[in-house]
């Protein structure tokens, strides 16, 4: 299939892993569309929704590419990177090496982003981050926007999904699904268990879920020959649960206690 991919920033390791894996799987990557981090609007939105500590963490992630981890074991995303024999740490460098069209846009909902994706005649858009998508970009690819979500659906919609799944005692899974106009309410395509163990902390849990999402996306797209096949899957919009948002300090501490108490 011809696939375009989004990313929230240039050094997004999950997006890089997805792009590389999909290319290796035999798909054509028509474009990588990265949202510019240097937007006052974006920083302001982040400041409002995540606070100062959230912005600090996000900037750290943008600069280093991987979230810091105090795990004694290897970072699951780095393991995946080694497994794919991926040398690059930026999407820009990877695109240059692979001959893939690379674009930086102010917003994924801009006309510039939409035309980049449609000009490449992409069958499908893989969402690797970059903010909430509005209907016109979804419609531009006939609703074929696919997302590896780091938690079980329909139970855990929104952010910090694997963390919430753990706190709320839902399945610790990732789900591959279509994006529609709601938040994580589109058709379900596949669900895969996250290999959680008793030594996991919040950081490793998250990294494992993201790494599992990359693998699950790759596997799901191997089974789908045409985008039309996706539309036979269940729509979850009608049974969607309460949307999740980033864990505050108290709930983060509770999750840490919960994970700790399993050892």
């Amino acid at each position, binding site marked *: 299939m011809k696939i375009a991919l989004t990313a929230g920033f240039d050094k997004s390791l999950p997006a890089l892993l997805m792009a590389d894996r999909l290319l290796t799987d035999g798909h054509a990557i028509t474009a990588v569309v990265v949202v510019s981090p240097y937007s006052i609007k974006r920083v302001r939105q982040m400041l409002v929704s995540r606070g100062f500590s959230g912005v600090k963490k996000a900037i750290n992630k943008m600069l280093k590419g991987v979230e810091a981890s105090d795990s004694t074991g290897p970072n699951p995303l780095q393991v995946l990177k080694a497994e794919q024999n991926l040398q690059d740490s930026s999407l820009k460098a990877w695109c240059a090496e692979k001959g893939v069209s690379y674009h930086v846009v102010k917003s994924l909902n801009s006309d510039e982003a939409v035309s980049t994706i449609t000009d490449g005649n992409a069958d499908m858009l893989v969402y690797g981050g970059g903010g909430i998508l509005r209907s016109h970009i979804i419609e531009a690819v006939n609703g074929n926007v696919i997302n590896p979500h780091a938690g079980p659906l329909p139970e855990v919609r929104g952010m910090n999904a694997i963390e919430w799944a753990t706190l709320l005692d839902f399945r610790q899974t990732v789900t591959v699904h279509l994006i529609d106009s709601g938040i994580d309410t589109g058709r379900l395509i596949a669900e895969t268990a996250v290999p959680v163990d008793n030594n996991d902390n919040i950081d490793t849990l998250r990294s494992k879920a993201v790494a599992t999402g990359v693998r699950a996306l790759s596997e799901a797209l191997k089974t789908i020959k045409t985008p039309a096949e996706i539309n036979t899957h269940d729509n979850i919009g009608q049974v969607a649960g309460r949307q999740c948002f980033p864990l505050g300090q108290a709930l983060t501490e509770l999750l840490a206690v*919960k994970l700790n108490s399993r050892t």
Partner: protein
Amino acid sequence: MSEPQLPSLQRYQHHLDITGRWCQRSAEKGKGGSCAHFSPFLGWSNPYPETTGYLIPTLLKLHQHFGDESYRQTAQELGQWLLDIQNDDGSWHGGLHPAKQPEGSVFNTGQILKGMAALYRDSNDQRWLDAASRGAKWLADDVSASGLWPNGDYQASVTPSYYTHVAWPMLEVWQLNQEVSVRQAAERYLDKMLTRIKDNGVVSHWGFKDSGPAFTHTIAYTIRGFQESARLIDDYDRYAAPMEPALEVIYRKSEMSNGKLAGSFDEKWHATGDFVCLTGNAQLAICLLLMEAQKPDLRLVNAATKLVDFVANVQRQSTPISGVNGAVAGSYPLWGKYMIGRYPNWAAKYFCDALLMTQERVNSELGKQTEGAT
């Protein structure tokens, strides 16, 4: 009282301590009652009977929480002052004390009933219940057949919807004295308010004025009044469930703003003004936790903690002005629309209540997690 285990619980405990002590100072300066507010420019205000009344249950909870007898002592002294200024007809006047107009005020009388009921439950001393019964009867006698109080509001021409915060204490008194006419009057009003709920969860007339936006302070009054009334008559579906759509909106807005919730909303839930009503934040945290108590979901607790955390983050602790340290401003920033430039005693009261509830809920969850490990 054992040492809180999580850093966030320790932080809540610290804020509870400094805010509780500020409440004590508001009573020390209050000429018998608790000062309505402190202003850096004008100092401590005169005492406010209404909020002195509902500060009492908070002080009694602080006594239980900290084991500090001085909180109980203050609660009783404030209660005695309220007995001394009760009108002969059982009502209490509105505004600050001394009042320009001594006529009874529906809303203010209702809030004072909470103090009287709490003191009675704490001590079993009949004089508190007698005063509460007289006040509740005065309120009940004035409710019309259609369920409204025809007189007594200080700003609006129709009975505001946030008077659910009057029905609640009436039902508190009914629970203690079993006076059926009081319960019937409260239900008549609450049933009338149910008809004001719109499809988007908004209850029309829930602001101070007949039209225009409502502060989160009175939005929370309205919701909490319904929730507590439902608890007292043991019928969640009748009065509390209808508040869920509004609380879902508040949940989302609280999360999306990371606790920096807009201070007022119009009837389409559009934020009006760029300020936070801090007491509204604390009150709505309580409302979310009350809904969560009925339908457990840690997502609601998360939103409540963010609302509380925001208030804690902007609370001043080390200024040279003792009336500011441990106080909670009306608005953030201080010059925001709600209680401009002042630190009201009710903001401190609701912050204490929210901290107590949040601590309790997080602690109970912590207990479950650590219990599961054994």
